[in-house]
Every structure is written in C-alpha cells, then in structure tokens.
C-alpha cells in the first residue's frame, strides 16, 4: 500500500529524514515509533502531500506522492497531530462539511464511523472547541474516515490523551482492518508498538528496523539484566563505571543493563559491593521493544 524509497528531507541544515525506506502492506495496522523529533511528522506530511521530499520516491498504491497528489488527497484520510477541525462549528457541522467537500454525505459511510461517532453523537450540537480531548480525537477520526479512505494516516493521535481514551482509540484502529483500510500511525509510546501488526523504529531521521513487534523483540541480541537498589542515581553511575555493560539506562523502577557476554549476577553484586553498594536486586530480564530500540541506537 505504501512504498517509501530513500526519502530524504532537510530543514535548512537540519536533516529531518535520511534515506528512509520501508513498505506497508494493504490492510496492515502499521506503527511508526520513535521519540519526539525523530522525523515521524515529516514522513507523514510527505506521504500526505503536504511536504515535498528533497530526494527519494514514495508511492501510495500506484500514486506518486509528488505527481498524483490530487488522487492521494481524494483517497487518503489524515489526522494531524494538532486538532485542526473548526472549533467554532459544531460536531455535526464539522462532519457534514468534511463529508461534503469529499463529495459524499454522512449517511453513505456511516457504518464505518458508527462505533466512534455514536460516542460523541449526544454532543453533536456542541461546538468542537467545547469538547474534551478524547472526544476531539474521536471527532477528528470520524472526519478523516467520512470519505472511506483506503489509507488512514494518523500523526500521534494518542499524545496527550488519557489512558482510557488511548485504549479505546487503539481498539477502534484495530477495527479498521475489517473494513479493509490500511492504517499508518505514529506514536512516541513504545508500549503501543505491541498493538500494531508491524512497526518501524525511527530515530534521528533514520529507520532503524522494520518488523512485527514480536520479531523486533526477538532481534534483541544482547544479555539483559534488571537491577534495583536504594540510591538510583549513584547506582547508575556505579554500573556505568564497571566495564561489564555496553549500555546502562533507567527503565521504570529498575535499571536495565545490557552486555554482549553473559554475566553472572554474583559477579555484578561483588563488584558493586567493592564500591560500597549493597542491598541490590539483580535479575536476568526479558527484553521489550524499548530495549531493542536502545540497542539499535548508536
């Protein structure tokens, strides 16, 4: 459905995308995962024909993102990162307006948005500016689906949304597959990767890896240990000073350490003991997407 080949884009001297390439299959729920400033928005805006790439090619279906922008705008749905519907129009007026400019009406594809729109329908005469964050997202999603696009591009739809709404939102994205709609969604939250069919990890404008969430975790090749102690900052510094690990980083309540060779936990606690650190929990740990992401980072 999407083919991206060697796309590069710079803003003045800053390279936002460096030779990014990957493919998204038809009907997939595909995640573009990376921290803020990784190049996610730039990539989505190029696909949505709002930005021109400096070099490289990208296709949506058989349409080129530069030449066939009008076709793409007709057949792709887009939900930008910032709420960009008319705040001074009501829920229903927004939906009707976007339906009409696509040459359709609310009824034609109502079945598609029904599970989402039903939740905000009680407020259909309320102005969009008066909606809560979660409801705004649902309205924006409804508006981007009202013309039954073949592909849906979502730029960080769950950023700044509460945990319950986020979960609901992902459930709704899951149902798009039943309607044969391909979804490309970007997010800075690593834990959301598990909800996608496949993901691309992106950092500093480079695509690090493209695979299913399970395979990404399987690709983790180092040995991982999680360590917990009283004095966190001192412990991190102590662990970094030992020459046992390739990477040491905080991870929730633990500290994750990776090494190329297996290390006995006893060895670690001995060495820490020499530095005056005791009462430390050391366990071998199972890697997650974030561990693989950090492993891939230079």
């Amino acid at each position, binding site marked *: 459905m999407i083919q991206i080949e060697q796309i590069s884009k710079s803003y003045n001297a800053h390279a936002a995308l460096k030779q990014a390439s990957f493919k998204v299959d038809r009907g997939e729920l595909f995640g573009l995962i990376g921290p803020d400033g990784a190049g996610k928005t730039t990539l989505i805006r190029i696909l*949505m024909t*709002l930005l*021109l790439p400096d070099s490289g090619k990208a296709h949506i279906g058989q349409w080129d993102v530069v030449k066939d922008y009008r076709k793409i705008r007709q057949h*792709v749905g887009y939900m*930008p990162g910032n709420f*960009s*519907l008319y705040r001074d129009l009501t829920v229903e007026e927004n939906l009707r307006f*976007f339906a009409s*400019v*696509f040459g359709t009406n609310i009824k034609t594809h109502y079945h598609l948005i029904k599970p989402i729109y039903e939740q905000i329908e009680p407020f259909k005469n309320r102005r969009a500016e008066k909606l809560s964050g979660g409801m705004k997202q649902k309205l924006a999603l409804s508006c981007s689906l009202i013309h039954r696009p073949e592909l849906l591009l979502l730029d960080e739809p769950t950023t700044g949304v509460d945990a319950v709404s986020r979960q609901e939102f992902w459930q709704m994205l899951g149902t798009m597959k039943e309607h044969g709609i391909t979804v490309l969604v970007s997010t800075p939250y690593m834990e959301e990767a598990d909800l996608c069919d496949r993901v691309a990890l992106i950092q500093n404008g480079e695509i690090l890896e493209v695979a299913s969430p399970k395979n990404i975790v399987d690709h983790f090749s180092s040995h991982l240990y999680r360590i917990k102690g009283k004095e966190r900052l001192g412990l991190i510094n102590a662990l970094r000073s030992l020459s046992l690990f390739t990477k040491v980083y905080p991870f929730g309540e633990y500290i994750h350490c990776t090494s190329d060779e297996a290390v006995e936990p006893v060895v670690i606690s001995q060495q820490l003991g020499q530095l005056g650190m005791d009462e430390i929990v050391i366990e071998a740990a199972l890697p997650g997407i974030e561990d693989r992401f950090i492993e891939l980072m230079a």
Partner: protein
Amino acid sequence: MRTILYLIRKEFLQIFRHKIMLPALFIMPFVQLIILVHAADFEIKNIKIHIINHENQNWNVRLISQFMASEHFVVHQVSNSYTLAYQQLEKREVDLILEIPKDFEKNLLKSNKASVFIGANAIDGMKAGLTTFYTNSILRSFNKNIVLEQMKIANSRSTAGIQTKTVFWYNPEMEYAHFMVPGILVILVTAIGMFFTGINIVKEKEMGTIEQINVTPIRKYQFLIGKLAPFMLLALMELAIGLTLGKLMFDIPMEGSLWLIFGFSVIYLFTILGLGLLVSTFSNTQQQAMFISWFFLMIFVLMSGLFTSIDSMPAWAQKTTWFNPVAYFIDVNRKILLKGSEFADISGHFIKVGLIGLVVNFFAVLNYRKTSA
C-alpha cells in the same frame, strides 16, 4: 462549483457565529455615520472674537455690529485694551483679536484708507485659516458698503456695479453631511473588505484548519473564492445599509444610478479583497494581519481626500493617490450621488481601479501559492 457553495455555507456559519463580526457589521455603519458625519463638519461657527475699539464713531460701531450679526462669530468683549485682549487669546478664551485703530473713521473718510489689526490663535492652523477667511469676508462686505454709500452721496444717480454672486454647484446648501456620507460609506466597505478578509484567511492558518483543508480535494481557487465571496456579499450589503441610513438620516441626494455605484463597488471590492488576501499571505497570526491592514487603511484614508482635499496636497502626494483605490471610490461615490455622473464620466476610474485590482490580485495569488504547500 458545489464545493465552493459548501465552502461559502461554512463561511457564513462561522461569520454568523462570530462574537465581533456580525455586531460590528450592523453597528459600525450607524456609529460611523452618526459620529463622523457630524464631527467632520469643517464649517466653523461660534468663533469668539475680542474687538479692541478706541472711539465710538459711526463706522466703528457699524463694523462691530457686522461681526455681531455674523453667524460665525460671537463677540466675547469689546474693550480698548490690547493687553486684556491678548491675555484672553493666550488663555484661549477668545480665538481672534480685531483691533480698530485710533482715527479709523477719520482716515477712512479723509484718505479713503484705513487699516485694522487681526490676530488669531494659529495652533489649529486650519481653524485659524478659516477664521481669518471669515473675518476678511466681513471686512470686504463692509468695504463695499462704504464705497456704495460714498458714491450715493457723490451722485444720487445709482451707478451700475459689478456684483459677484456665489453659487455652490452640486451641493447648493453646502451641506457637509452630503459631502461626507459618500466618503464614510467607502471607509465602511473597505474595512470589511480588507480587515475581515485578511483576518479570516489567516485564522485558518493560525488555528491549523488549513492543514485539514489542504488534504481534501478542495482546489486552491475554490478555497479562495469560498473565502472572498462571502465578504464581497457582506460588503455590498453594508453599502446598501449605509446608503439607506444616509438617505434616512441625512437625506443625501441620489442623483445618479445606484446600479452604477454597486457596479463600481464590485470592481473596487475585487481590489480590496485582493489586498486582504495579500496581507494574509504575509501574516501568520490574526494580530499581524490586523496590524498590516491597519497600516494600509490608515494611509489610504488619510490620503484619500475624505478629510483633506487632494488638490491641497503637495504635488508628490497627489501622485500617490493614483494608486489609492479608496480615493477613487470616494470620488466616484460623490460624483454619482451628488453630481449624477454617468458611466462615461467615471469610466477612467473603472479602468484604473480594475488595473490596480488585477495587479494586487496577481501578486496576492502568486504569493499565496508560494507560501502554502
């Protein structure tokens, strides 16, 4: 075509829901017509004058009584002290001092020559100018009376004299309202065309809604027509309201064809809406658009001949009015309403404003395409 209609419908929904726009649209013409038309009356009445008189001779008294009879002057005091008069001028209790010197009548009758002193407070240059102008005209008519009387005494047969009689064409009663209303109407129409359009287009940028519009099949020209057409309609409506109010409140004459006024308005609004669009391409926020529009409007209005006659500007300044659409529209409005000009009389204005409009819109659209993806 259907898309444009949807856009226009959306635009009107937003305009009618806007907190400021709609009230402004209906209240502005009332306030501007009532306040500006009355305030911008250049006719000066009630000029306070102090007359210094040293002798109570016949001609002295007659001169003083002429000032007393004039509707322009209020005689504040008659005294024989220049110091007192000057103090009053300094304290702004009076606007003008007239001193009738000693031996005024004697000189007048003996040597046919006498002089008076006039002193005016010239802080407000325009008022001082008009004041001395009124004073001179009283003195002139006083002079004429003397000459006529002296001649009657010399030979009782009446002599033929040249009489000048002034007739004010196209505004016979010298009604300032009739002169001002057509100009105020232009300001109203311009404010809507430029301010509201510029702000409205930038609002889409500022709110980010342009992002969502850009990913729909809406073409750029459709978007622009959808944006500009509602304001063209609103501005024409405003003109109609203004003309109606002008007729009801000031009974302004409507000598020429109203169709011609509306026809010219369409060409004029094409230009002004283009300016609004141009301003919007330079701005990222509504505030910026407001500021740039205000800057243009200020210059256009001050240089338009609404308050100061273009003919009294220096030559270089007069040339700048060639590029001032506001000046053309005010001129056209006055010509059609007061003078009953026909299309043939103002066809030059049609062409010039149309040309300005083409140039402005060309750059506006060019810049719009460049600044939006």
